[in-house]
């Protein structure tokens, strides 16, 4: 880890004023310190924002929305009764990410800012256009199980590893941003950027800007009864998604009035599938609908390496996630959040023959 200046900010104004080129804001540190230890980033200055008052609250808004402060810890957010009751897919996504310890430290803003788990990004000896623009991308032609099938470019095939941001994208969350010239807002869906020719740019944050809060609009509360997050992993817990999906439905008179779908693990950003959502409107919530929706969601997908299985897997996942959402949000978060094994029935050890 390189040497750095340590600056503790007492206010947002102080934090943004302390920013210099090469500086990073430090919140929970669970991703930033990992990157620093790996020699992947070498910030000249850390601006510790954890002491800034007012950034750690969860505020239900008068309009029916919710404002989540930048410093709200992932575990506090997931366990908040209002949050888990109103935005169950959000809680399920949060609790399917990382570990109990990491969730206790990781923050809302930090989760939105976390970098890819691409092994070539994480290996300073590999060429990576994110770390070193123009250097090339060694992930191409390498091991690509966790790499993108949507929205990737010749310069970068990395995926965004966040679980939390997937339902946020589905629920039209908005990111509140502060900088030296004041505050602004941007839709979470537009907050993360696709690699294109500039994979080194991962978000729309300008230099020196920081996240103040993430806000859910009032409409996001309309999906509470039919919302799930589903995540395929290579072990039962404590693993990044191979593919994940947040699926939310609003049903009326037995038909789909509104649907929301976002995918994780498939692109450099949480992938909102608006076209696929539209296909569901007015349909019966049945397998045919899910299949069609899934096909549409992945219609633009193509493998970035030896990972075409992810396209098929993502389609299956979308269909399964919607089937679960249609079945209804469980009364209680499952013991294995977001897991394919998060089944409501407790196994009795008795096996029915198919």
């Amino acid at each position: 880890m390189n040497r750095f200046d340590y600056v503790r900010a007492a206010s947002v104004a102080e934090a943004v004023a302390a920013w210099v080129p090469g500086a990073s804001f430090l919140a929970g540190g669970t991703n930033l310190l990992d990157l620093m230890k790996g020699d992947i980033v070498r910030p000249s200055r850390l601006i510790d924002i954890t002491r800034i008052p007012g950034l750690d609250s969860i505020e239900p808004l008068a309009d029916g929305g919710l404002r989540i402060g930048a410093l709200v810890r992932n575990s506090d957010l997931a366990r908040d009764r209002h949050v888990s009751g109103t935005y169950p897919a959000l809680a399920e996504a949060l609790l399917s990410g990382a570990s109990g310890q990491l969730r206790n430290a990781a923050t809302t803003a930090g989760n939105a800012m976390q970098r890819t788990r691409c092994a070539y990004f994480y290996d300073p000896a590999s060429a990576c256009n994110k770390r070193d623009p123009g250097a090339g991308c060694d992930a191409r032609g390498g091991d690509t199980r966790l790499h993108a099938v949507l929205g990737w470019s010749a310069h970068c095939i990395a995926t965004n590893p966040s679980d939390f941001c997937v339902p946020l994208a589905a629920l039209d969350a908005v990111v509140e941003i502060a900088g030296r010239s004041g505050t602004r807002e941007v839709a979470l869906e537009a907050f993360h950027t696709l690699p294109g020719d500039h994979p080194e740019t991962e978000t729309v944050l300008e230099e020196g800007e920081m996240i103040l809060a993430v806000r859910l609009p009032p409409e996001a509360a309309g999906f509470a009864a039919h919302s799930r997050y589903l995540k395929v992993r290579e072990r039962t817990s404590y693993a990044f998604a191979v593919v994940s999906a947040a699926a939310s439905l609003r049903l009326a008179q037995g038909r789909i009035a509104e649907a929301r779908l976002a995918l994780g693990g498939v692109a450099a950003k949480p992938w909102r599938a608006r076209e696929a959502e539209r296909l569901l409107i007015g349909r019966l919530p049945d397998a045919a609908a899910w299949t069609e929706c899934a096909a549409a969601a992945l219609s633009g997908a193509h493998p970035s390496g030896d990972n075409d299985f992810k396209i098929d897997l993502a389609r299956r996942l979308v269909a399964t996630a919607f089937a679960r959402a249609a079945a209804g949000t469980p009364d209680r978060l499952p013991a294995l959040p977001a897991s394919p094994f998060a089944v409501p029935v407790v196994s009795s050890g008795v096996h029915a023959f198919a």
Partner: protein
Amino acid sequence: MPDTIPTALPAALPALAPGHVRHGSSIGQPLTRRDGALKVTGAARFAADNHPPGMLHAVMAVASIAHGRVQSLDIAAARAHPGVVEVMTSSNAPKLARHPDQTGQPFTYKLDLLQDDRVRYANQPIAVVIAETLEAATEGALLLRPTYAAEPSSTSLDQAERFVPDTVGVGSPPNETSGDVAAGLADADSRIEATYDTAPQYHNAMEPHAVVARWDGDRLFLDTPSQGLSMAQARIAGLFGIDAADIHIESPFLGGGFGSKGAVWAPQVLGIMAARLVGRPVKLVTRREQMFGPVGHRAPTRQTLRLGADRDGHLTAVDHHTLTASSTFDDFFEPSGRVSHTLYETPNLRTTHEAVRLDTGTPFFMRAPGEASGSAALESAVDELAEACGMDPLAFRIANYAEQEPKSGKPFTSKKLRDCYARGAERFGWASRPLQPRTLRDEAGLLVGWGMGTASFPALMMQATARATLHADGTGLIELGAHDMGQGAWTAFAQIGADGLGLDAAAVELRIGNSALPNAGMAGGSAHTATAGSAIHDAATAAIRALADLATGDERSALFGAGNQGVVARDGRLHRKDDEQRSERYADILARAGRASLSADGKAAPNAANQAQYAAHAHGAVFAEVKIHPTLGQIRVTRLVGAFAAGAIINPRLVTSQYYGGMIWGVSFALHEHALHDPRTGRVMNANFAEYRVPVNADIPDMEAILVEEDDPYVNALGVKGVGEIGITGTVGAIANAVWHATGIRVRRLPITLERLL
């Protein structure tokens, strides 16, 4: 540094089989760990927990190429970093008395110790930065920014030329044949040929290899985890040209070993060299990513099995071919075929091994080396043949039960495998398993599959010595340079010593984990309890014999005239065998003789006559249930039942834990562990605990180990076989077979990944 540890009170554990407990005996009791209180309070000092005065921190820089030379290092940049004291490279590393590529001693492997600029594998140490703080040393190592002259590298079985190694494993012939395999296959009514791939794996004990080294003139003091203290002394003595007796190693606790701490590796020696270079104590701890290269691993294998069976399901031939790998510069060849020598009766048996040389670190003994990978393939292939024969996999195995060891024709010292099959199957509910795959679902619609595999592991004996002492205060002392990697030596060896000395375990002090103690050999091959335990038993027996001599030759003793064979030691007293009412306290015997204590040495070694006559193995049967999401392919091992027969059980609580651990390694082997080398650079791209996956708690919902009683009069005086490695064998195949049973899909590449089930 404690040599001894306080005794925890034993807690009752009624769930464990009472049949193992003999009246008045410590052996067989499910005592809790004597080191338990230290380990749950953080008071157990592992090597890296030591901090002698004046100590500096050393951090290795490692190569990012797999083959070539180091061209430059920015030593000035590292030196300029505040706190950096010295940078050790090939230009200033202390010269060694013996080149580290000169091996020759058994279990000694070539090491990369900065004697030149060549790079033979990725993550090879290329420099060491020594600093006042860990932070400075860590950053100093990064600032070296090496440049290389890289040469092409090969890190996969497909990338290099095959050859037949001279030996595999520990001196075994690569190719062995009995009967006529071609004829056996031709005669078969059913036959299968299948090729199985197993992945490279790295031991990754939770405790990384670490050393705290301190020189005092030519005497060397080390804290480092070791599975073989005496061998470590010898290796280090040879490298530095000093007397082994001048090397004092403390290793009271190992944070896991699994074989990888059976040798001294480069990181430990580099720490010692750094301490010599700077003239101050040095601590060097391997970083997790550096565990993927310089400290051994399990090589990948590609095994092709051709099996035939007659119409009754009896094997007509077993042909087991293994392709594996060693490094470009040293020899260790995973002996995967050997498991076929011992498991199933067949008139025609052939095992062959080929290898390639890869630009990796040298492979090494990793928990069940050969048996784990070999069993994975054999148990899968046997399942495939049972399917081809239309037979239940368990019935098929029983039909091919080996009454003698197939390869040698020798009878077994003992073999309760039938009991293992029966008890495991009953507990698991195997009888209700449908033969056809993809027929079971649970209430949630998940695919359910049941599979099984046979477990086996050789019952080895090595060499060890021990010393037993009786004190005039009535307590006992057992001393030997034994090793506790977590298997429970601190507890089990005290139990063996207590029985040998006729004392309660609480009255016996145990000293282990320190090189000044009598040489207890190595903790490896699942043979430490058998070997070191036998040495303890021998020493304790000798001490009691000497005590009896004092008493029976003394007219003042109640035991006078009883003769050596005429006494029995129990509860701190010697009793006449012919009249147990006549007895005397040890303390009184010693006091009268004017002795403060009485010591005796003991030893253990293989019994050559028994070995010539018998084959010795532990056996078991593992039954696995997997659940698989029918559309997403994600897999979970929801239930494992293992029944094992491994001779006498010193402590059923600890043995159960060993079986659990082994079976979890089986889960890991079957579904998780896979070191991914980038084919272009040879680097391990997942050298971390996030992407080099080992099972987490949620992966292990339900598991059971059944301890099948087995008396073995031949293996050693205690009747003990090993339990540390057998749990992996059988389990891998059982899981792979369960995956097939759940899905109808045979996945022959391990670990099994979900996309193969879509």
